[in-house]
């Protein structure tokens, strides 16, 4: 692994540096600070009188959705968004979000900086079938590096926790990002110091150094521990059947209220009935809770039948 080449500046005719557009895509999950990170970068550009545009979409950000911010800077910037395939740098605050936007990277020269922390949304845990797996991406860092040679994956969130301040994870990433851009480390440090709460300036300074040094040390150690629960192995296909003994049901409604799949109802005779047998997961709550033992749940392996 080698540190990415800093962006190139060419001298213009009047002595001012002419800057080819640099495209940085910052991505993450709502609430992580994607917009804060990109604002700091934009502010830095402004200090150098470099034209900069930063584009994001708000609204859903607070509610845990995917968040992205395009930062483009150079001598002349038109579109506020980065065209697909033209991002020089993808800075990802979460593992799956990094993977989501990989196609934005320049296929020849794009660099990925990614925090390998995994934020698993409730949507990933929705499948009620037996043996269901998490709906999350199971790519490893090595698999990603096959496609993106310039990939720098670090468990920044864990390292930040070890530093004693979880919120410095983004600063570690800024330290990593700083190796690919020409701004001086002290410029980054000063903007970070002006942005973070005063009490945390010192720990953020450390965090920035940590990220920067890690990339520059050409370390091959990722500090990565992919925590996403592994797909369930060796589960057996089963058939689930509910047996209701109507004579014993007195219509107390307990199973109807408690069924997690909400597929039990009382029929016209105040007797429990299943509305969608295919949706029954066989969790047995109704069987256990029924005071009259009117419900039995039969779970049989599919193979056993054949």
């Amino acid at each position, binding site marked *: 692994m080698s540190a990415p080449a800093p962006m190139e500046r060419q001298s213009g005719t009047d002595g001012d540096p002419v800057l080819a557009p640099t495209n940085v895509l910052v991505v993450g*999950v709502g609430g992580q600070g994607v917009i804060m990170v990109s604002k700091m970068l934009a502010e830095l550009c402004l200090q150098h009188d470099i034209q900069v545009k930063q584009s994001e979409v*708000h609204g859903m950000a607070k509610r845990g*959705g995917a968040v992205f911010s395009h930062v483009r800077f150079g001598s002349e910037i*038109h579109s506020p968004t980065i*065209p697909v395939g033209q991002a020089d740098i993808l800075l990802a605050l979460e593992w799956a979000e990094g993977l989501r936007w990989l196609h934005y990277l320049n296929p020849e020269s794009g660099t990925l900086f990614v925090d390998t922390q995994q934020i698993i949304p409730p949507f*990933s845990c929705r499948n*009620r079938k037996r043996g269901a797996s998490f709906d999350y991406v199971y790519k490893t860092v090595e698999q990603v590096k096959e496609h993106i040679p310039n990939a720098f994956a670090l468990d920044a969130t864990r390292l930040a926790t070890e530093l004693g301040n979880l919120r410095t994870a983004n600063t570690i990433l800024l330290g990593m990002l700083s190796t690919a851009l020409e701004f001086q480390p002290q410029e980054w440090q000063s903007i970070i110091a002006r942005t973070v709460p005063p009490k945390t300036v010192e720990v953020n300074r450390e965090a920035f150094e940590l990220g920067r040094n890690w990339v520059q040390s050409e370390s091959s150690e990722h500090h990565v521990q992919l925590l996403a629960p*592994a797909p369930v192995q060796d589960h057996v296909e089963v058939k689930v059947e509910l047996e209701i003994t109507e004579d014993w049901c007195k219509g107390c409604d307990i199973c109807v209220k408690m069924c997690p799949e909400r597929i039990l109802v009382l029929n016209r005779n105040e007797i429990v009935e299943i509305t969608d047998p295919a949706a029954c*997961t066989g969790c047995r709550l109704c069987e256990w809770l029924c005071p009259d033992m009117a419900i039995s749940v039969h779970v049989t392996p599919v193979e056993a039948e054949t």
Partner: protein
Amino acid sequence: MTKATAAQHQDDSIAPTANAKLRPLMGNEAIARGVWEAGAKVGSAYPGTPSTEILESLGEFPAEDVDAQWATNEKVSIDVAIGASFAGVRAMCAMKHVGLNVASDSLMSQTYIGVNAGLVLVVCDDPGMHSSQNEQDTRVFGQFAMVPVLEPSDAQEAKDFTKRAFELSEQFDTPVIVRSTTRLSHCRSPVHLGEREEHASIGFKDIPSKNVTLPAHARVRHPLVLERELKIQEYLNTSDLIRWERGSTEVGVITLSTCYTYVREVVPGASILKLGVSYPLAQDVVRRFCDSVDRVVVVEELEPVIERELRIMGIAAEGKAFFPRIGEFSPEVLRAGFHKAGIIKDLPKTHSIEIAGVARPPVLCAGCSHIGTFMAMRAINARVMGDIGCYTLGAIEPLKAIDTCVAMGASIGVAVGMAKGGATDRPVVATIGDSTFLHAGIPPLIDAVYNKANITVLLLDNQTVAMTGGQDNPGTGRTLRGEQTHRLDFEQLVRAVGVKWVKSVDSYNLASLYQACREAAQYNGVAVVISNRPCVLDPVKIKGTPFEVRAESCTACQACMNLACPAISWIDELFDGHHKVKIDQATCMGCSMCAQVCPTDSIQLSGAAP
């Protein structure tokens, strides 16, 4: 989600640097700056993404310069601005595109009246519907109302055009629309700051034939509106608002708004006519431009407004044949379009890496009071008419408790119709948030009582406008600038319109919430349940002792997963083939709803004795 909201609250607080005259501003902030620099005295708006930050930013300027206030809805906001213009001071109202539907009644009259001091509407469209229920094109409204529509392409122009809008408004005696889009409103780029021009009040002009829209007066005014259109067209033919950038004569591109920036990026060699004003069309200069090139391509997001105008002028313009009429534009969309048109040859290479993304739709927050109310809707098997707000998220799995959602404030009226229409096999319930209720929910509630409808209204009072980021409203008792004001009492209001059955409940107490909803559904007439837990994010982030899962007794029944709480997810450990669950300690705010639905008492306060 551990680093959550604290970082977010810092978002707006980067200290300014030495170069104070050049500041990075979001499009919306630039518009607010333009309003302030133009010397406007009154600004009014109802929050709505992507327009919300305009009034919030205006509220950061000194109170003695400009009155910035939240209106109860967009109709009120335009009326307030109209009133201020009548009074003799420059005034602005801001809204999202669908807000203009609400405000349009006044706009359609005001266009005949014209203005006294400058009157500017800022309307933010949402192509691609990042956060809206439709993607209507405000330019069509501009044509309809015969009101000029200005189209800035970046933050600098957003500020400059806003100032120009006030000038045009006064020069041509017309309200003026400044049209933004999500991409402009939420894009940050450097803006040269200017000073504020002070405009003393010109006073009210007592001209009844202009100011009072009687039919007799309006008949005189209408021809003047048509004349005005011609005058503005003539003005635009020589105005710098229309910019001709000479390039290759093979292709001429007519474009506007942020589309211009994409055009510059994708076909840098083409001749470009950049329209700073989309209505009325500067016909002379457009015709000269079209005559100067071999082929005319129109690049405009959403409706083919300009393309149609060109066709009417007999110009063989192309546009929607290559560029979609739906969704948001981007350099990629334009590249594909110009490729299809044969204007660019090769598409750039991109990564071929195939990774199925993680579905990450927005969800209700951990501890959101709406979770309980939609669980209650499921419990009573209600037919639910939803409304616009965070709680619209109650429509998606696994809460999946909303059957219809139409527009701001529509829920109660739709519920009345549903009940009258005979769909009464299940209880008919309207769910509506506090601010949406004040926006457009009161007249339909009066209607429901008046017409003796048998419906239940669930008023979700989370004491803020949560969806747009926690703005104040009459129910919070604070103004936009944070001053104390009268705090509206919802229960009193509901009783005053004649509702006899009203009950306030704690949305975290599921048993009493279910019971209240059940009783309300059984009541024959209009029943109102007010659920009253505050939003967990705004105005302050609420964090209590979190709950934890005792994995040894968890039977993986997934009952807690029905809450769709972002703090609850699976662990590797299985029980009878299903994943047991865990609660993220940093995200959980201790609402206790999951503990209430857990049938095995496996969810307990963290640190409590086993």
